[in-house]
């Protein structure tokens, strides 16, 4: 009997503690900056074009082959009277969010810091009715960065924090 009374006491002591739950769809938990949802392409605001040059590094490194990358000659390159230093630029880019396993390898292999993991709630709440809608194209991938809605975190690989 004493054991059961002790159990009841434990439950009672929890009952008077403040709750730890949130009303989720209405109240969102603040996410840490390192949070990884799905990969996004970043937008170079100075030149007004994506950072991505379509070099296929991420596509090759992806363990689940969820990316498709096509590059083209940059119409805005300096040699043709434009402002950009990028000779090649991304033409078409698809990421299948249904296949992506969010391992962060595409971010690590990118030589231009052009891809980052979405660390906002928009990246987590991606439910759709049709699986095909989870294949994101270039426009969908760059929108968040274009609008300035994301403050991306690009990891400093293998380096210790500065003391």
């Amino acid at each position: 009997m004493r054991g059961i009374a002790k159990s009841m006491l434990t439950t009672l002591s929890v009952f008077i503690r403040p709750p730890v739950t949130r009303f989720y769809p209405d109240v969102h938990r603040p996410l840490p900056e390192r949070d990884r949802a799905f990969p996004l392409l970043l937008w170079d605001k100075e030149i007004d074009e994506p950072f991505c040059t379509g070099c296929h590094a991420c596509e090759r490194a992806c363990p689940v082959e969820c990316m498709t990358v096509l590059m083209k000659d940059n119409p805005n390159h300096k040699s043709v009277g434009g402002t950009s230093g990028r000779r090649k630029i991304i033409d078409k880019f698809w990421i299948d969010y249904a296949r992506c396993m969010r391992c962060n390898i595409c971010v690590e292999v990118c030589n231009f810091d052009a891809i980052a993991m979405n660390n906002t709630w928009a990246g987590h709440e991606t439910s759709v009715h049709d699986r095909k809608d989870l294949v994101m194209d270039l426009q969908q991938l760059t929108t968040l960065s274009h609008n300035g809605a994301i403050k991306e975190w690009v990891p400093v690989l293998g380096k210790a924090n500065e003391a």
Partner: protein
Amino acid sequence: MVTESASEFETQDLLLNVGPQHPSTHGVFRMVMQVDGEVVREVIPYIGYLHRGAEKLCETMDYRQGIGFMDRTEYLAAMNAELSYVMAVETLAELEVPERAQWIRMILVELNRLASHLMFMGAFGVDVGVFGTPFIYAWREREAVIDLFEEISGDRMMYAYLRPGGLAWDVPTNFVPRVREVLTAVRQGIADFDGLLTKNEIFIARTKGVGVISAADAIDFGMSGPSIRASGVPLDVRREEPYLKYNDINWNVITRTEGDVYARYLCRLDEMRESVKIVEQCLERLQPGAIMPEKMPRMLRTPPGEIYVRTEAPRGEFGVYLVSKGGNRPHRLKVRSACLSNLQALRHMTIGSYVADALIVLGSIDIVLSEVDR
């Protein structure tokens, strides 16, 4: 089988199918029990519903890409699974892991053990029939631990944070105070469980003397982890074959002698206290420094050879057998799953017990089906 009895009716054993088998539910286990009234006469387990061919997949990709699949091999203690894998690669490639990375790794695997054991407490409570209360209590503290993992690695379950050689990136600057905060929460959670279940007469009546396995039988079945330590065998890879820094700190191997379900529960509860102690000592020893070796090749290649590395995961010995023929990917990768070995003893422990007890025994060996099926 017809027996000579006073009754003129023939009795026949009933085949009882236990377990869901919808392929989209994760971690499903099916067993067919042959029951005589309420007594189990035979148990036939069916595994393989979650088979993904993770070992074979790892052979088609380089060492870094394989880490993500190791996470999914044991999703409740992904850090432990990653550790075995990266340690195998490191041993083969002869990489020296810096001091700081080793301490951080140790903190993370012990925190992961806490999260995993908390998950056990909750799920086991549900199995026993205390629906709701322990489950919610366990998830409250587990949430604190995985929130911390999210701040460090970015993901809540599939961390992909360890790398051959060290860590992918450094921990946040507020790491130490945050871990201490989490430890305070977990200590509270352990106290809650102690109060809720340990002395509870109903819980004891339900679990004591159920699913007993002797030390000799447990060894024969190749059990490991808390399931074998509850039978009185002090088998702990952290003690037998120390890796990381387990030799440098004070901690005890928890054993019980009863070998029943209640002993397995107590063993895990005490192990959580040990883990808290280990993490506290690690935090004191943590120094600033490098987290990766000085010279890391851009693409990691290993010389030809083979290696078997084992670590103590929350469910037992998690081993990785890696064969390399040179190059940047494993030639063969074999995962030694503790859950699969522990599951072998299920039949031995359940035959002759009641149907309701069989489910408690299954809960008490704390299987993760993704690790069993791989």
